[in-house]
């Protein structure tokens, strides 16, 4: 039996959704706290991906936080590594490491480096930060799973701006070529990158049509609607002889009104005062 069987069989009723929303609220608060303390980091993309990570780790990912190297675990790769605070907040919430690490983010000697370091953080599958590489690593993990006759799944979360990297499409081609139907790409489609709107910088659209053209099954969802995210994860798990891509429409900076859809919040830490306002909006005293 899969470890997440319990969560997986829970009906998606209002109380379960409320539980997930509460988790995401706590996770967002921790993202704000850790970036504010660090004095640098990427709040926008961390907040846009927070609901996706919450849904994956708390409902469908088959994992054992007390045994991060468990051979049969599902793999999750945050290819958009600059959203590390979101991953750290979720991993800490799952119990991979003590939450005291949050406030040492980006500090000298810290477990939680500026971008995810697999040699330091339990639960981080591979080191990311340089965009465009995670999906290829995921393809390798899925190939290994097939060679070993294991049924673990591989999830790779990419940014929309990241799709401008050519290697993403090399990996997309490879996953379809090898008919890897246990790999699922999740695109955090928040529409912004450091230099501005993705359409103005280097337009990767039409995003769903590109994945389809590369041989993937594609589903578009609202990346802040837990029912839709979970339904899409279940859809991705259905065997279809091809890999699955979930294109999740999101809002950069989601959950903090003055950060929402603002490109200037891509890679700037909130001041103490801004953090206080953000936390108040998130219901933290």
């Amino acid at each position, binding site marked *: 039996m899969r470890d997440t069987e319990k969560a997986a069989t829970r009906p998606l009723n209002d109380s379960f959704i409320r539980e997930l929303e509460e988790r995401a609220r706590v996770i967002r608060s921790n993202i704000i706290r850790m970036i504010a303390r660090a004095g640098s980091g990427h709040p926008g993309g961390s907040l846009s991906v927070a609901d996706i990570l919450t849904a994956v780790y708390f409902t469908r990912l088959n994992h054992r936080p007390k045994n991060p190297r468990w051979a049969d675990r599902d793999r999750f790769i945050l290819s958009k590594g600059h959203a590390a605070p979101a991953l750290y907040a979720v991993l800490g919430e799952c119990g991979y490491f003590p939450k005291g690490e949050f406030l040492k983010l980006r500090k000298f000697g810290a477990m939680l480096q500026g971008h995810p370091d*697999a040699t330091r953080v339990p639960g981080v599958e*591979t*080191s990311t930060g340089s965009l465009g590489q995670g999906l*290829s690593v995921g393809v*390798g993990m899925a*190939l290994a799973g097939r*060679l*070993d006759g294991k049924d673990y799944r591989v999830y790779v979360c990419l940014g929309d701006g990241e799709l401008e990297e050519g290697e993403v499409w090399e*990996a997309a081609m490879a996953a379809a070529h090898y008919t890897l139907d246990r790999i699922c790409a999740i695109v955090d489609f928040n529409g912004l990158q450091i230099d501005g709107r993705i359409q103005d910088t280097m337009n990767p659209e039409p995003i769903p049509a590109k994945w389809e053209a590369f041989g993937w099954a594609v589903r578009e969802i609202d990346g802040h609607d837990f029912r839709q995210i979970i339904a899409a994860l279940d859809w991705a798990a259905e065997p279809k002889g091809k890999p699955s891509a979930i294109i999740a429409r999101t809002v950069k900076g989601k959950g903090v009104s003055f950060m929402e859809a603002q490109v200037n919040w891509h890679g700037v830490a909130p001041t103490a005062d801004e953090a206080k306002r953000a936390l108040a909006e998130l219901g933290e005293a």
Partner: protein
Amino acid sequence: MGVAKAIRDGYGEALLELGRSDRNVVVLDADLAESTRSSVFRRAYPERFFNAGIAEQNMINMAVGLALSGKTVFASSFAIFATGRCWEQLRNSVAATRANVKVVASHGGLTVGADGLSHQCVEDLSLMRTIPHFTVIVPCDWIEAKKAVLAAARMQGPVYIRTSRPKTEQLTTEETPFVIGKSVCLRAGGDVALIACGIMVGAAVAAAKALAEEGIGATVIDMHTIKPLDAQAVIAAARATGALVTAEEHTLIGGLGSAVAETVVGWCPVPVEMVGIRDRFGQSGEPEELLRKYGLTSEEICKAAKRALSRKKG
């Protein structure tokens, strides 16, 4: 002595052995399997061979994913693509996670020949030497290449091995010991030490013979591991002879010569003369023509040895 075979042939032979003895070995290539010799493995173990197509960056990172899932992964292409095109993947994904990935790249150096500049990689050793956690090996003949590949499979962590295209003479035997990071002394002499890697080891042996006829005793060291460098052997040779010559089919910026110089300057400063390529690109031509044009011959090593001797103190 022995059979003339291409250094890359040693890779194919080793892979065949590994395929048989270790079910965990997986091999990747990027549409160059016949050229790199990974095709030998593909024929014998097709279920553990993956062609990445003409997409080297994806190949290197697929190797990372396989390695992080417990596989011993060999990934091959031409040296220029494997190291030049994928340097950032090798740094940020392979080395940063210390993944058990072995990059075995053929067509190192000018002896690629007619394909010309675009395919002649003379920078790979510098590129790979700068990445933490990478072991860098340049075998001198096919039999040493075979041993290097088997040794790389036995060790945990990232390894880069450069092989070459043309057939070259066999300089070592089945019995020659091979330990990563431990050089092989092929000839002893008291006046000067010739430290070489890859196909230049053969040229160094020829140079030592020519020097002997002029009454100059030359030690020849086969420095198959560029990193970690056998510093002990370099320092011992510097102390014993007081004059060193390095020889590599590679740019003089950052390769074997640099590694040797970095070592002696700290421990035993003696004259070091370097034979290699002087900050230039290659061009089309027969390997022999190119080696002559770019000064990678035993004659050049002899001249360098004499320069080193003349600079030697008292």
